[in-house]
């Protein structure tokens, strides 16, 4: 609440006075509010489609209500559950393989003696982040294809060419690997910044006490980085289904042979909506389900992290 001191009055100010105090801020908010109203909230009525059966002639408003029938149908849709399963698996996979790597990288970079080289390395590693998945998919098909560089090297050494992009057992690791490659540099920036904030004196004191490098990392570096990890962990969990879906990445990289392992909720929705033209209401129900789960996840993650002693997001 705006304090009495700020407003320069002795009694609690009226609402009108407070609004007047903030008038410029309300002014500032107008463009933003208009934007959200038009582009985020006006389409919001489309959520109702999750409970309807879409009728082209009547549009979303006029389409008949069918209650939770769409959700009931979802439970028996094997393709959807496969997509859901894949989303969770890929999401957990990325959590396991991708989430820790920037942290480790940051710690390693922090340990580097050569400052100049450290900057150069950091810049280089950040570069893949800026390239879109459209382009990266093009590069990867080029390199990992059967006649790509990687396979050519493998066959020179006498091995069998590996169908990276069309073998269901390899595809997911390819997804994890390529995601790490793309984002490790960028994601590590936050951690490096956090690490740079650790006072040098702590390390010096530790050295005097005889701590070796590993102990320094464990008792100084890691606690310094923990709050950052906590926040990012929460944000990650809250976006888990989106991360697992990785629409951009998977859409540009996948093909029919790997649908079984790589079809995620987002790609499933996209493909079914636009190719077989399944009922839009059904697809909206899927989106609704996904959003609902996201909200629950972020709430849980926040609780988890607060329990662990770190400051949460809310």
């Amino acid at each position, binding site marked *: 609440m705006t304090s009495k001191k700020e407003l320069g009055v002795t009694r609690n100010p009226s609402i009108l006075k407070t609004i007047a105090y903030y008038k410029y801020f309300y002014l500032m908010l107008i463009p933003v*509010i208009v934007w959200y109203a038009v582009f985020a909230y006006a389409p919001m009525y489309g959520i109702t489609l999750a409970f309807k059966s879409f009728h082209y002639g009547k549009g979303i408003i006029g389409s008949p209500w069918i209650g939770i029938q769409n959700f009931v149908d979802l439970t028996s849709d094997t393709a959807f559950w496969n997509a859901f399963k894949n989303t969770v698996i890929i999401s957990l996979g990325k959590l396991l393989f991708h989430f820790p790597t920037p942290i480790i990288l940051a710690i390693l970079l922090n340990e580097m003696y050569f400052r100049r080289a450290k900057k150069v390395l950091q810049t280089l590693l950040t570069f893949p982040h800026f390239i879109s998945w459209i382009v990266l998919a093009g590069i990867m098909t080029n390199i990992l294809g059967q006649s790509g560089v990687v396979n050519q090297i493998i066959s020179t050494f006498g091995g069998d060419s590996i169908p990276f992009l069309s073998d269901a057992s390899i595809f997911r690791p390819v997804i994890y690997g390529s995601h790490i490659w793309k984002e490790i540099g960028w994601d590590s920036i936050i951690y490096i910044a956090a690490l740079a904030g650790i006072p*040098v004196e702590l390390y010096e004191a530790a*050295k005097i006490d005889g701590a070796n490098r590993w102990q320094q990392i464990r008792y100084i570096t890691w606690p310094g980085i923990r709050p950052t990890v906590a926040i990012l962990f929460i944000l990650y969990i809250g976006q888990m289904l989106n991360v697992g879906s990785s629409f951009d990445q998977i859409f540009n990289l996948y093909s029919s042979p790997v649908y079984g392992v790589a079809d995620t909720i987002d790609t499933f929705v996209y493909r079914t909506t636009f190719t077989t033209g399944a009922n839009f209401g059904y697809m909206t129900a899927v989106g609704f389900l996904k959003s609902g789960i996201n909200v629950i996840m972020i709430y849980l993650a926040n609780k988890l992290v607060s329990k662990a002693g770190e400051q949460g997001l809310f």
Partner: protein
Amino acid sequence: MNNTETFLEENVIKIVPKRTRFGKQKGDTIINVMITTLLVILAVVAMFPFYNVLVLSFASVKGMAEHSIYLLPYTFDLTSYGKLFKETSFYRAFGVSVFVTAMGVALNMFLSVTGAYALSKKGMPGRNILLSLVLFTMFFSGGLIPFYLVVKSVNLVNNILVMVIPTGVTTMYLIIMKNYFNTIPASIEESAKVDGANDMYILLKIVLPISKPFIATFALFYAVDRWNEWYNALIFISDSAKIPLQIYLRGLLINMSVQLSSSAAAVVDSKAGVGIQATQMASIVISAIPIMCIYPFMQKHFARGIMVGSIKE
């Protein structure tokens, strides 16, 4: 402007320590070398695909035929680049992307800064409701069809601005910016108020100048997002003169739908398809150049900007 300097000192500059922690210690050198080697290997592996692309973009037909594994720059043939530069649809797509990025970032920053700053004022009536409304949009959306209808009703379908206006705000960035503005000590604003400044003036002449690193960071975030934009274009743009670079690249890279003008059809058909790969790689290189140019400028602002915004609450 004592306050500003102190603020910078305490919250921003301190992040980069002046002294290094590495003194001489036994076993240090070995570990240093190990770590450095590991990281260098990592960097090489990370850069290899781009190296491969670059090398292939300079390939000539003869070179490709002679060397089945194309690892070194055997040739320095600029034909693919030449052909690409003669291609009007490439120019147009590039121009569209430049326009979209410039306009997009301008709108993004305008909306995000005003929104984030206003929403950072905890005492403002209605602020919590507005914040919740904003947060809500991070999770729930109405879906593609209603979105299409709304875009249609504001006459943005097949309009270049459809890649600028509907992407006006990325809520996550807005939230982080809001958090950042919360870290600015109230004392700065209070003393300005005492001097008679109103809130607009404070934002423009006091808060923004000291937030430069931060603003720069987010401008870059937005710029990358706008430059790599393709989804809205795919859905809303039917006019091939208005497609952005990413869609053009997509067509070229999957070799399916790029309608090259008949005079430049040679780009695709020439050299029995061997040239097409070089052309694809050349187009990738060209599209990455703008990003490569901006990044070094922004790099020094990153660390400060990102950390401050996301840690403090």
